[in-house]
């Protein structure tokens, strides 16, 4: 039922073939603009660009193993109010999932966008990528995929994926309007483009691509990939739980925190216009610090660091989609992603909720089910 078409790979060039595909899309598809990651001049990274001219797509590279920010935030900015045209946005699965959460939080709308998701094999951290990429970003992407095709995996040239990506069990954006399939495909020949929604079909229908099916091989590889990641993830959960098992360990775990709030800024689902930690709520009276210090004779400064992380977990762990940008942003190498995912996993399980899966799932705190948490409320009658 879903429309599935081939994206042909010309001259075995994955990157340029994709660029051609997006050019066709912007030219022939019923869209006003396209938002997609591109290599920027002089920068050894990629950034989301909003493009309306098909000729300005020469540096497009959504497959580059890096994402300096979770683009859901910018999509949210684009869609808070009517946009005045339809835009296709090319996103990683975690970005789509973050965007879905934001839409539920009324921070964005899906009306004016077509979500295009690309299979994600992971990314290097912001620190590692510049070292990995060298001079030519597009060449680096090709190198990364060649390495994978040769069966050497995602570690390449001595660099490895960020822990968040290694623990990500959602490499395929099944909830996108259009899904671009890479995993399990012969990337010398063609990739897949699959429309999951009518919106996606409308877009693909005009591009003149020949239909195809989803090869069995792809399913197998996806299964394998997910299994590996879940194994990694569970190991991470176990280690993190152990490392934060009591208050003292938790304090140690977070002791490097300097209240820079970078993790919060980088977090795609942290949506407050202004964080409560920046408001008057935390304007303690100076004498208060001294009183605190007096109690035990020593007070670690700055204060409220553990409180900050706990609050963020309380607010956002139901919406955490595990992109790992928090860790990416931390200047002091606190494993923020690890603890957030560990907690989020439990919170979401408790509410039988999977952040970012679908717009149809009501966010946990907006609905009330009488029968939930019987272990807590049953005794309260």
């Amino acid at each position: 039922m879903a429309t599935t078409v081939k994206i042909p790979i010309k001259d075995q060039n994955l990157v340029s073939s994709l660029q051609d595909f997006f050019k066709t899309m912007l030219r022939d598809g019923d869209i006003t603009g396209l938002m997609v990651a591109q290599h920027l001049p002089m920068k050894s990274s990629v950034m989301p660009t909003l493009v309306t001219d098909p000729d300005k797509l020469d540096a497009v590279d959504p497959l580059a193993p890096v994402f300096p920010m979770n683009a859901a935030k910018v999509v949210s900015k684009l869609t808070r109010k009517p946009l005045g045209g339809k835009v296709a946005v090319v996103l990683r699965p975690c970005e789509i999932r973050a965007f879905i959460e934001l839409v539920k939080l009324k921070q964005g709308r899906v009306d004016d966008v077509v979500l295009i998701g690309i299979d994600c094999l992971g990314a290097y951290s912001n620190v590692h990528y510049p070292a990995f990429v060298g001079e030519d970003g597009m060449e680096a992407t090709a190198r990364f995929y060649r390495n994978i095709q040769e069966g050497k995996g995602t570690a390449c040239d001595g660099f490895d994926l960020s822990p968040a990506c290694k623990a990500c069990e959602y490499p395929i954006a099944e909830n996108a309007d259009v899904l671009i399939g890479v995993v399990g495909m012969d990337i010398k020949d063609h990739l897949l483009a699959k429309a999951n929604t009518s919106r996606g079909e409308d877009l693909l229908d005009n591009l003149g691509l020949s239909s195809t099916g989803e090869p069995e091989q792809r399913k197998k590889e996806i299964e394998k990939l997910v299994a590996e990641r879940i194994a990694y993830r569970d190991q991470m959960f176990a280690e993190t739980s152990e490392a934060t098992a009591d208050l003292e360990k938790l304090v140690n775990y977070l002791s490097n925190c300097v209240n820079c709030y970078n993790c919060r800024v980088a977090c795609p689902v942290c949506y407050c216009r202004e964080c409560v930690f920046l408001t008057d709520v935390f304007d303690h009276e100076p004498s208060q610090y001294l009183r605190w210090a007096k109690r035990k004779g020593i007070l670690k400064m700055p204060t409220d660091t553990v409180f900050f992380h706990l609050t963020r977990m309380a607010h956002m762990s139901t919406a955490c989609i595990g992109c790992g940008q928090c860790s990416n942003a931390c200047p002091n190498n606190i494993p923020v992603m690890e603890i957030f995912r560990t907690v989020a996993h439990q919170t979401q399980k408790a509410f039988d909720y999977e952040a970012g899966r679908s717009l149809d799932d009501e966010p946990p705190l907006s609905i009330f089910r009488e029968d939930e948490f019987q272990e807590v409320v049953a005794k309260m009658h």
Partner: protein
Amino acid sequence: MRKKIGSALVVGAGISGIRSALDLAELGYQVKLIDRAPNLGGTLAQLDYQFPTDHCGMCKMLPLVERDSASQFCLRKGLFHENIDIMLNTELVQMEGEPGKFEVTLRQRPAVVDPELCIGCGECSRVCPVEVADEFNAGLAKRKAVYLPVPHNIPNNYVVDLDSCTLCGECEKICPTGAIDFRWEARRQFRILVVDDELIVRDSLKDWLIEEGFDVETAESGPDALDKIAKQAYHLMLLDIKMPEMDGVEVLKRSKDMRPDLPVVMMTAYATVETAVEAMKIGALDYLMKPFDPDTLVPLVIKLYENLERAGEFTMEVGAVILAAGFDSFDPAGKGSNTYGYGEIPNVVTSIEFERIVSGTGPYHGKLVRPSDGKEIRKVAWLQCVGSRDMHADADYCSSVCCMFSVKEALLAKERSNGQVEATIFYMDMRTFGKDFQRYRDKAEKEYGVSFQRGRVHSVELKQLGGDPTIVYMDIDGTAHEEVFDLVVLAAGQRPPAGSDLLAEMTGVDLNQWGFCQLQPFSLSCTSRDGVYAAGSFSGLRDISESVIQASSASLQASRLIHSKGGGLAEASESEVAFRDVSREPPQVMVALCTCGDSLAQAAHLDEVEAFVSDLDYVSQVHRFESICTQEGWSQLEEAMEENGANRLLIGACMPYVYTRKLRDLGAKIGLNPALMEVVDIRTSVFPGNNFSQEQASREIRLALAMGVGKLKGMDPSLSAATPIVQKALVVGGGIAGMTSALGIAEHGFEVFLVEKAEELGGNLRRLYRTLEGNPPQELLEQTISKIQKHPKIHLYTNAKVLHSHGRVGCFITTIEKEDGSGETLEHGVTILATGGKEATTESYGYGQSESIVTQHQLEEQLHSGQINPAELGAVVMIQCVDSREEPRNYCSRICCSSALKNSLYLKEQNPEMNVYILYRDIMAYGFMETYYTQARQAGVIFIQYDVDKKPKVTVENGGVSTVVTDPILGREVMLEPDLLVLSTGVAADGQGQLAEIFGVETNQDGFFQEAEYKWRPVDFLQEGIFTCGMCHSPRNITESIAMAEATAQRALRILATMRVTAGSIVAEVRHVLCSLCEKCIEACPYGARWRDDDEGKIMVDELSCQGCGSCAAVCPNSASVLRGYRDQQIFSVIEGALEEIF
């Protein structure tokens, strides 16, 4: 605060009484609310769970506007309202005067424990040697003679039950505050005359009573006694009946001539008991049975003494009286036969007992175990109609509520046991006649697996001694089953409350044949006596929702009467209290410590506490008072506050809840917003029972005070603004409900816009010609229309429709299109939607294929018009529940069974030879309607029950109609060939959806208006200021629609009666600069008080609808949504205060 403009007495402080009292209090009347029980709440005090939410929710009845005038906590715990004076242990003993000006005499039973002094420490109960069955737990647990009537009351004072008290005095000795006082010294002033011809009786009585401290004299004969009485006054005479010369009755008569006030108690042997009873009729107070022994006689005399000496009687004037005396539960082991072995067979309990078994405050702490042996309950049977629908129990009526009560209990049992309990309900008809009842029942059956077994269980047996209760029952086809249960629950029906006959006689109201209050035609609150109104189950058998509606109907009638007698609702409130603006001043907290006599000083180091508190930030001074709870202590505190000009007050005392009203008064007096005052409990935690050292106690007190100061210093001192009210109402719909509502409001002097889409007023009532009870609907219609047309305050728009409406409570702006096509914009403070429903149409059962197939309504019309002549009909078949009580219209239309009964009785009366068959699923003859069901059966109407999956089949051939239905009893198909087939198609929604959109309210899945809360706010919409009544809300009959309309008028008046309304001091606010517009708070708000203003791009809060629950603040991640009085900084300060000593 509104001017007191009249007063009313409400008898009975159960749910109905509370509703009526709150209604009147909210209108500004002074209300005296009395109950003979020592606690509020009536039956509901015992019930934790209510259908359909399976929670309580009683608090939803608390005032929504001007809510600071009442307490803001669980209503089952207590109620404070500035206009309500509650008197417990109190009965109405006399009523004189005229409607509008009754003089009522109230008698309060003596309070041995002074509630002002009792601090609820429980020492008295601990030392009390008496143990009796605990009424609160329906006898499943024991209590002492000095006890807490309801364990969760606030404040919770101990009371002495003089009936079981042995007067040992232990409690009096141990009470730390001297709250218990048996007043022994007063006994020495109490003179008793003992009259008996037998010396031994005289002497022993004298000895015993003197020992108890009384002053006793004796007389050996009648003449001797009369002599003594003539010479001096006595307080009590104990008088033997059988005496030579002059018998006791004669002495009684003569003594009554001399000293009519002298209480006389007869002494009798068994043989002359009847004489003693006769003596009571001519004025004896009571009688005592011989032979006497001191253990029984002395307490009896003492009880008499207590009642005589200490019963406080007083008289007051009230404009109207509302009788909300409630009901008693049928006693399955009472007189007559104990078919179900209640009290004989272990583990046979009543529904109330079951309710206590599952209650967390019950004897088993909510564990599902049975009373006899604590065994886990795994198999339960509910037996319906115990003491209802039973001639042998003198109950040709249905108790209306038991069906849903049992379904609820079965669901509770299922939930409590994670579905482990096997639950079976044995019933005759499952009366799911209310809104959403049917779906609830279906849910119980289909989702939870509750088994419903049709058939009345004849008895409960014990097959072997020490075994479990056994039920033998018959399948519908006659197969016998024998089943053993862990527990059998008897759904005991309702009875008039004890003493209702006296109450009726005293107040001059008629009772019906079963002893319930007789209501006037077309009213659920008017009794036979003008000025006396009935609320709740006193007039029979109502669930909470109906009781609440009826109570509001009663309060409207009471208010209408008082108003018509010149009481009048105040047009404007008196000048509002102007509070000092302290927002620019730094916080200055005065801390007042109540030392509770010297007991706090003994318990803790007060100097150290005082020093600590003085040192806290913003504390300007600390004062100690001996007892703030006394008038004297309070005046001292007031003085101190006035003198020193502090702008915050923290009181450290006990029982903070008691201070609500006092703080308001103080605020008014010294011009300080009471929101800036706080009371913390420094007493409870250091009760002797806790065994704290002085150090520990001091720390507890320090913590409590530090937290209090923490909260106060961050308190926002700005004042809440008042919302102006447009004192006009819009009523949409001119049927009987709309008209009644409009009249109710207009008769209080407020303007009403009444908008009707049809050309004429009347709606469905135009098509009704008879009621089941035989009252004339057309007369009612005529009278009501005439009143509407004549009323100067009512602006009537017929052939008009509503186009658009916006606004919030207090000011709505609505545009209507008038008859001539022109528009008009109306401004009004409240809106009432009363647009009615319509008879559903159908395509089932051959409707439309033959003229011999009509609807129930058509039958009534055609009988009226003469189109149908009963004399020409040989057989009539009626089919009930056409297309209803199954999806998609899975609800009972409530009125079809009564229509069928009404029409079939009429047909039988007109033509007794006619065969009338009613094919039904469950006959919904709730309440006293049951008796008409009996009559219909007696008249020879044949009722054939069918199941939804085995519906009757109708064939139309050559104009002839035939019906085939299976008789379940015989298991045979019955073929009927009626001359007329009548279909009860029920009531369907009629365009509510469109109106809902216009007014921004909700409809339910069946298209009827969705009330805020089925039980507690049955006529309100979630959005404050909009109300609904009549069939647009749910199917109901004329009388029920009228009652509901009266309730809406009452709810509307509550808002209209004042020019401006102030929100509570605790309301939510939005800090727009922080708000990300995620709308979580809108979803979280249970009162619909929030919305997003798209033009402004802001989240708005309706202060009058907001009840300060704080859900919005809890879901808001960055404190953009905050609750006044509970801001983050305050809570941090409180936490700091609490942690100060710990870390």
